[in-house]
């Protein structure tokens, strides 16, 4: 269909784009805005590589319609660098070797971020629950769980 105007807050800055509301949010981020950090691994909500935070909740952006971004607050991996919590999570991922091929990494970091916003002192099991919607073929998950646990501890200090 024809384009409509969509306004939203992305990584704490206001944006307005004109786009097809029938697109996926993932495509708006990657194609319209050129934010390539959000990845597509499956397109059906199963891998979590496209995870972003929409109004405070981790969601798979391949299953959100562009129209649904209207008036929303969105955080993507590109917003983590300048975010205190995001930065610590990234540091712990890098130091803890939670990154191998890295294709899943932005999605995991977004899931970790959503978790720590809601629950700053998660148990290991809570962490595993929170990342269960993110697939990783390389790391076997334990280094990722370790990294998130460490990020929580670092942030608590």
């Amino acid at each position: 269909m024809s384009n409509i105007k969509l306004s939203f807050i992305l990584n704490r800055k206001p944006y307005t784009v004109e786009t097809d509301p029938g697109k996926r949010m993932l495509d708006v981020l990657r194609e319209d805005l050129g934010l390539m950090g959000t990845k597509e691994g499956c397109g059906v909500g199963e891998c979590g590589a496209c995870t972003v935070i929409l109004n405070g909740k981790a969601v798979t952006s391949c299953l959100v319609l562009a129209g649904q971004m209207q008036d929303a607050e969105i955080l993507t991996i590109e917003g983590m660098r300048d975010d205190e919590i995001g930065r610590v999570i990234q540091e712990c991922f890098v130091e803890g070797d939670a990154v191998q091929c890295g294709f899943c990494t932005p999605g995991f970091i977004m899931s970790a971020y959503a978790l720590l916003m809601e629950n700053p002192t998660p148990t290991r099991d809570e962490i595993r629950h929170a990342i269960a919607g993110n697939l990783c073929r390389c790391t076997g998950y334990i280094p990722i769980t370790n990294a998130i646990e460490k990020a929580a501890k670092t942030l608590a200090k």
Partner: protein
Amino acid sequence: MKIRNYIQVKTVEAFHEAAKAADGPITILAGGTDVLVNGREDDVYKDCTVIDIFPVEALHGVCETENMLLIGACTTHEAISHDPLVKQYAPILAEACGAVGSLQTRNRATIGGNLANASPAADTMSALAVLHAELVIERDGEARVEPMTAIFTKPYKTNLAQNDLITTIRVPKQSPNVRYDYVKVGRRKVLSISRMTVATLLEMDNNGVVTRFDMTVGATFPRPMLFPDISAMLVGKRPSEQDIIGVAKALSDKIPEIAGIRKSTIYKQPVCRNISERSLRKLFADILK
């Protein structure tokens, strides 16, 4: 995804107006976790006006009347699984919603969409069936109430018209004495479409005599079902080990009876029997001693 038109509404009234105004087919969009998957490759929604009801605040959240929980159709599985009212008055539903997909999915996927999509594997169905839930459905501003199980015709098909909006899921409040068990069998721990669910709800008097009993199997029949004959096997009785074995067998025998003998029956029938026995033994642990 190709669509004809996209309209976002903020109230139920606005939905009705938009539905009326649309020429051609309409598709209701809630969390979109089914719609976007269906619409991915083929152009199934190409001619549709998509009406996005997710922003309708009135459709989100849980409230209560004296006897009922009223769950807005757009309440997400994640919200329901943590909702204090649901946990108190219908914990089996909280469990079923918590068993859906991943956190990302549960954060978007709604209970109304789960029902309207009518997948036989939908996790909320067996729980809502044993709870005797009802649906409030509005068409063009007029509301009607139907038993939850009544809207399904066959897999992925309901008798809802395209402008029928499920607004509320009405769930009778359960007393604290009600015992329940919800078992999901999937191929992995999370993010797995159910091979089978078994939902059980029952109540006993002080003597251990069953006053109410509902047990059903999900992800197995073409649509959610309740079985009065199964309920009758225990109601009025203080169950014995033999009764439990009998109920489990009767319930699992429904599988070939209703779904026919398929390749999956070889697996599902004995598993149904086993997990039913296991559930009932757990629920009646104190009685069986």
